[in-house]
């Protein structure tokens, strides 16, 4: 029993990342009908927004501290972040410690802008071209973005720790009445799960309960008619692209403490997220979220020792295996709509 709970918990955080990326992919696909291979790159850029933000926070100037001396007896040079000057040392330290959560504020506008620029600058010109061309150009864009990030930040992963307050682990088993130390779960992963649940809820609420969302849903169902009603649907779809980019970016920001960001993390996630989208059903938002969590949890179950003894290597292939089975038995995916991408 405790093993099962542990695996479900382990699957949740990876599943959250899959679900967030797949949600963004599906938003773009459902609204603009574009298969965006650069979505993984957006996830990665989000993660590097967190890195950039913490670097901005720790921008320092060097002063000579007379009270401390180095081993030669000279006064020591100390780097002092500008934040200390602004807020004093204690507050400054706290802000730097909370760099990752705070960088959300920085990431959302940046990612909205990146998404907007991408749609207006490039993808707009590909609506009338075949899907293969869309895949290819976004694939090229993903390579370019990845290489640009590599040029500025180097090829090595950059550790970006979570705030001290969330550094430990929660003894989850003890809460449920199991023996202590059976099910322990890092705080940050709980936060990640809650955070992604909130984001997913917010996106759905936005689409369901606002006029803007209603128009967008109408546009997803029948773009032409909405256009005929005198609504500028293209403009709204562009905003949705920005929103999808922001969702991917947020997924990336919050993922940095779990996995140090490196330039190819986007591509690693992209391949899996595409599988997730296809399993969930192209163009179905609930399908993407469901499939994301489902595959995340399946993956963690498949990496249990008991399972691996019977079927070695299952954890490596389970996602692809499930995808193949689902595509062959339910060609539209779990919750796919009829008539979407069936050319």
């Amino acid at each position, binding site marked *: 029993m405790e093993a099962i709970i542990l695996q479900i918990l382990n699957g949740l955080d990876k599943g959250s990342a899959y679900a967030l990326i797949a949600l963004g992919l599906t938003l773009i696909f459902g609204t603009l009908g574009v298969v965006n291979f650069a979505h993984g790159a957006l996830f990665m850029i989000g993660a590097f927004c967190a890195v950039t933000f913490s670097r901005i926070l720790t921008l320092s100037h060097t002063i000579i501290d007379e009270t401390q001396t180095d081993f030669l007896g000279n006064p020591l040079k100390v780097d002092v972040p500008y934040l200390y000057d602004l807020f004093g040392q204690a507050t400054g330290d706290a802000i730097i410690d909370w760099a990752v959560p705070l960088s959300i504020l920085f990431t959302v506008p940046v990612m909205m802008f990146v998404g907007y620029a991408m749609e207006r600058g490039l993808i707009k010109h590909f609506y009338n071209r075949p899907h293969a061309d869309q895949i290819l*150009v976004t694939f090229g864009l993903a390579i*370019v973005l990845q*290489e640009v990030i590599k040029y500025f930040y180097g090829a090595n992963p950059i550790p970006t720790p979570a705030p001290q307050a969330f550094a430990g682990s929660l003894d989850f088993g003890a809460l449920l009445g199991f023996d202590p130390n059976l099910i322990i779960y890092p705080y940050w992963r709980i936060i990640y799960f809650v955070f992604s649940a909130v984001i997913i809820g917010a996106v759905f609420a936005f689409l369901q309960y606002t006029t803007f969302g209603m128009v967008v849903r109408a546009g997803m169902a029948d773009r032409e008619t909405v256009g005929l009603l005198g609504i500028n649907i293209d403009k709204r779809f562009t905003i949705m692209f920005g929103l999808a980019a922001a969702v991917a970016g947020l997924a990336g920001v919050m993922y940095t403490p779990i996995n140090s960001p490196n330039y190819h993390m986007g591509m690693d996630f992209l391949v899996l997220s595409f*599988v997730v989208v*296809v399993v969930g059903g192209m163009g179905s938002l609930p399908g993407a979220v469901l499939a994301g969590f489902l595959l995340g949890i399946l993956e963690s179950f498949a990496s249990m020792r008991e399972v691996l003894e019977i079927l070695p290597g299952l954890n490596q292939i389970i996602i692809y295996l499930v995808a193949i089975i689902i*595509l062959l038995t339910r060609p539209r995916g779990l919750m796919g709509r009829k008539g979407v991408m069936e*050319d």
Partner: protein
Amino acid sequence: MLGLTKKDLQLMLIVTGLTMLAPFILNPFPESSGMAQFNAGYPDLMQRFVIFGIFAIGFNLLFGLTGYLSFGHAAFLGVGSYGAIWMMKLVSLNVIPAIFMGVIVAGIFSVAVGYICLRRSGIYFSILTLAIAQMSYALAYSVLTPITGGETGLQIKSTDRPLLSNLAEGETGRANLFGMDMRQSFELSIGDWLFTFNVGYYIAAVVMLIAFYVSIRIFRSPFGLMLRAIKSNQTRMSYTGLNPRPHTLAAFVISGMYAGLAGGLLVAMDTQVGPERMFWTASGEVVLMTILGGVGTLIGPVLGAGVIKYMENILSKINKDVLHEWFAFMPDGLEDFIVFLVYPFIGKGWHLTLGILFMLVVIFLPGGLVEGGQRIGKWIKNRRTAKDTGASTEPAE
């Protein structure tokens, strides 16, 4: 001749000439000159040109004709490589059975994969092939280690005793063709130039010419026409009473066998395999090659393979010092500035150049470099005729 039209025969002859004379053509700069680093005429790189040319030709047979975009083609290359190396380790060090084995194994694998994946089309097909390729990679990397050698891959070791070879005790076997070592080279130096003629390269080149010839024949055959029909309109094709599935599967298998052939040749040249050969970036690379060169054209894929492999091997070698040398004639400040501008695109950053080039091609030249060449050709022709007619209509005053 050879069942080709005059135009195709011309193309075939040009390609034959270029591949046979490649050691000369690719080494245009004297050894001692500063430009010598742009010479691509060394055996290892020339072999890669033709082998990846074969791979791209095969990919083009699928994507160019039927329009099915496979994102997992490297799996067939990898499977073919594994088949070939086992043939070498167990049966014979001669490359011919190894290459055949690579083709056969890849062919069987692609029948299985094609049977599953071709049930869907469009983006679903791309994802399915990608999933299967990633699965093969993961399996080769972990569970199948007894067969694939896992992370370290497979090499021919001194303990390998192939059945049909008479190696001395402790001698490491080498790939050969009836006794000719693949690594054997004949060097010719004329003045300051050094030309290398490598056995392995010429074997690979001959195989590529055969592969190229077969691809021309497929392009011009009724079967090729059928494949184009699949690309343009499957529904209409089925209304005329033709079932597209067997044709697509045949194209897929042929394409997989081409990949296996390339894999077998790779093994024949360097006698080693690793699972990274099947990683999805390798599949992406062949897509890049084909698109860059010109999808659906005969010569495009070979051209694309050449350009990408050239960039990978030559562009990536240029470093900051070389750049400073080039721009040394400029004033210091300007020199540093230009180097600063150019540096991100070369050396380790060559992928960036590749990505940008690829995007430009997809956006502006959907037909790839071949279309670019045709457009320039047409432009020159138009200009010339415009001039001629312009001259003739000039009023006589």
